[in-house]
């Protein structure tokens, strides 16, 4: 494992300013966190602790209020996502980061195969190979081929989640952000996705995830970070840290 982390978050703060009610809602109160290549760091903690907000700040769908989010890109360059301009973020999202969220809705009125195929093209694959890559990704998440021609909106929550996973993992990114990737899946499909995530980690992908499920964290994570009230409350290997947190 390389010494330099892929992701280094320093002093990250986020307040949501809600003008209609004239209030500031603090979500993150100073978070430090690193993730190395081939390392899986899982965020756990009570609902509202700021875990999803943390991922969104890295993806830049939320704007950090203060702090730094350093990403070491594929080409070795270092960029602070908290300060990067929008065009730079678009470029980074295309090549270096993938984000799979339970809240992301796949393109409506496109078939499953098209949705994943378009994701492949956006990542830089040639259109000619995109369909084959998409098919391989859908097989990896064990989505039945007879569903590939349907529109995602018609599928069950778990099937939609697997479509999102296929689209997000078809080309191994530098950093993979996962927000509750198995929340809607039955145990058989959970195992499949665990294998997928473990496989990506083995190829050197840095993984930062949110799981509410301690079993998933024990199975997958190298380190668990307990987030409480916008701060890191505890950090360490799953065994030990989870037990201490439960106590």
């Amino acid at each position: 494992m390389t010494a330099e982390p892929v992701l280094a978050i320093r002093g990250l703060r986020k307040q949501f300013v809600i003008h209609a009610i004239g209030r500031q809602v603090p979500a993150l109160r100073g978070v430090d966190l690193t993730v190395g290549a081939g390392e899986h760091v899982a965020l756990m903690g009570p609902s509202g602790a700021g875990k999803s907000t943390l991922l969104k700040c890295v993806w830049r769908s939320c704007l950090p209020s203060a702090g730094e989010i350093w990403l070491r890109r594929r080409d070795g360059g270092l960029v602070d996502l908290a300060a990067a301009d929008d065009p730079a973020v678009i470029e980074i999202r295309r090549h270096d980061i993938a984000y799979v969220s339970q809240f992301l809705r796949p393109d409506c009125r496109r078939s499953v195969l098209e949705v994943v195929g378009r994701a492949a093209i956006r990542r830089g694959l040639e259109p000619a190979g995109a369909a084959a890559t998409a098919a391989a990704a859908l097989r990896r998440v064990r989505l039945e081929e007879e569903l590939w021609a349907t529109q995602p909106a018609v599928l069950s929550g778990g099937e939609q989640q697997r479509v999102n996973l296929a689209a997000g993992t078809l080309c191994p990114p530098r950093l993979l952000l996962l927000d509750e990737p198995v929340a809607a899946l039955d145990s058989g499909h959970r195992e499949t996705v665990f294998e997928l995530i473990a496989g990506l980690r083995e190829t050197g992908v840095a993984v930062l995830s949110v799981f509410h499920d301690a079993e998933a964290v024990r199975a997958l994570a190298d380190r668990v970070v307990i987030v409480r009230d916008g701060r890191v409350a505890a950090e360490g290997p799953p065994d030990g840290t989870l037990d201490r947190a439960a106590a």
Partner: protein
Amino acid sequence: MADCALQVTGLSKRFGRVLGCADVGFEAAAGEALGIIGESGSGKTTVLRCLAGDVAPDAGRALLRRGTEAFDLFTVDGPERRALRVATVSIVYQNPADGLNLRISAGGNVAERLIAAGWRNFGKIRARVSELLARVDVPLDRMDDPAGAFSGGMLQRVQLAKAVANNPALLLLDEPTTGLDAAIAAGVLDLIRDLLEESGITALVVSHDMTVISMLTSRAVVLRAGRMVEAGLTDQLMEDPQDAYSQQLVAAARGAL
């Protein structure tokens, strides 16, 4: 394939005492679709009409880069400006009557654009028109029907065919689906999305409809009363708008998103 970047700075326009827009500036990278969000009276249409050449701005620059050349749209005059409308900057209007001649055929509307660009061979023109109309899903057996006989959704498709006929560097879309029935609008929106992705054209999409902006654009700016109040990544504007007015707009749309 268009290779273009657009950089607008200090765009201002008054209509007598009424402010159209003031000090509007933004950039669109080559192949990017940029959204301009605003309600009625926000200045969004004024911005588009200045870029299309329908209206002359009071101040500002609009640098259009294509490959190694770059020029300011606002300093181009007369015949050169008309030439730009034919092959470089195309606009799709909210009201198709503004962009089409309803008295001539659908095919004729598209052909006019080709002829203005120098096409002369009747057979080739007809073939290209057929290809374009097929691409926008206008049935070929309606090619020779007068445009005035078409429905709103079909007219938007004909406008799109005409707008992309000469592979322009910049495509301007003014509320492209507003006023259409929901199912028809969805079809036109899907078509626009596919066209933008396939052609890699640089586009500005003006809309008050957050669904349209979310579907078509990666970055957007918010206008209010002629001025810019916020700019950002489209998903960030929807998820985490900073400005009070942007927050109102997003909250109002939240049921639909």
